[in-house]
């Protein structure tokens, strides 16, 4: 089966309905296991118990960026292939991404205060991540400002694609500019294995949670559009 068969809303409802419970269950298992392991690890030799904030801060932040990437890809597909389902996918990812971004900022601030002595600093990483939140909010505002569905989707898609430039900026910001934020340490082998396990479980859990909720929101929008079409056909 090709991915484009899934672009048919009816087929999408069938297949997503089949996979959804499993993805949601896997998310729950990963989150519970991650929490248990996360509170089981010893305090870090430098950061003490604040290291546990990592298990909610890093997953929220990476999921926020991944959600934006997914939204930008869906936007590009919607723009190029003119497919309504891609527009729906992009539109429904935005509020979820905004929540993950806000959580990344809040938990980061709560980690920054005890470790750096500051809730906030205007460095490259923090500022570009704040820009991510503004991009999400701008996207949502733009979408609700234009009433025509197709025009709204097109304008939003352009914003989403241009905003994607911010993703590599966030990622490399810690290398490019002086910062208090720690560097990209996960894949650089700078974290002890005892901390990596809960971190990976939480990252997996957050990612799967995002995909479960994203699917539910796409399915919801498909039902809403079906209802609208029904009402219009009856009015005619």
């Amino acid at each position, binding site marked *: 089966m090709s991915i484009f068969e899934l672009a048919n809303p009816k087929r999408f409802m069938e297949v997503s309905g089949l996979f959804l419970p499993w993805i949601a269950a896997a998310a729950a298992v990963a989150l519970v296991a991650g929490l248990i392991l996360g509170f089981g690890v010893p305090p870090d030799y430098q950061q*003490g118990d604040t290291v546990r*904030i990592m298990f909610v801060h890093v997953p929220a932040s990476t999921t926020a960026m991944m959600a934006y990437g997914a939204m930008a890809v869906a936007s590009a597909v919607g723009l190029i292939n003119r497919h309504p389902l891609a527009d729906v996918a992009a539109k429904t990812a935005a509020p979820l991404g905004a929540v993950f971004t806000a959580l990344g900022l*809040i938990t980061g601030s*709560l980690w920054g205060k005890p470790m750096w002595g500051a809730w906030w600093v205007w460095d490259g990483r923090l500022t570009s991540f704040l820009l991510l939140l503004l991009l999400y909010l701008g996207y949502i505002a733009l979408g609700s400002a234009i009433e025509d569905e197709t025009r709204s989707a097109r304008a939003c898609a352009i914003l989403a694609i241009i905003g994607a430039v911010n993703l590599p900026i966030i990622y490399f910001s810690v290398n490019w500019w002086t910062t208090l934020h720690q560097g990209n340490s996960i894949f650089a082998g700078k974290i002890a294995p005892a901390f990596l396990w809960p971190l990976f479980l939480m990252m997996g859990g957050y990612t799967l949670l995002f995909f479960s*909720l994203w699917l539910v929101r796409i399915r919801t*929008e498909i039902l809403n559009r079906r209802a609208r079409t029904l009402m219009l056909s009856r009015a005619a």
Partner: protein
Amino acid sequence: MNDFLSQGGYALYVWPAYAASAIGLGCMIVATLAAWRKAKRALGALQDSETNI
């Protein structure tokens, strides 16, 4: 137990971080499911009224 609650003296930062995460994710889940149920009910009502005509 007290060690667990005090988080090595960082309770004021660790617990709010987890609380904020739980509240944020929790509200997102509840809102998403509520919208799904509402859409399902609305479409169901429309289709019922169609078959009743």
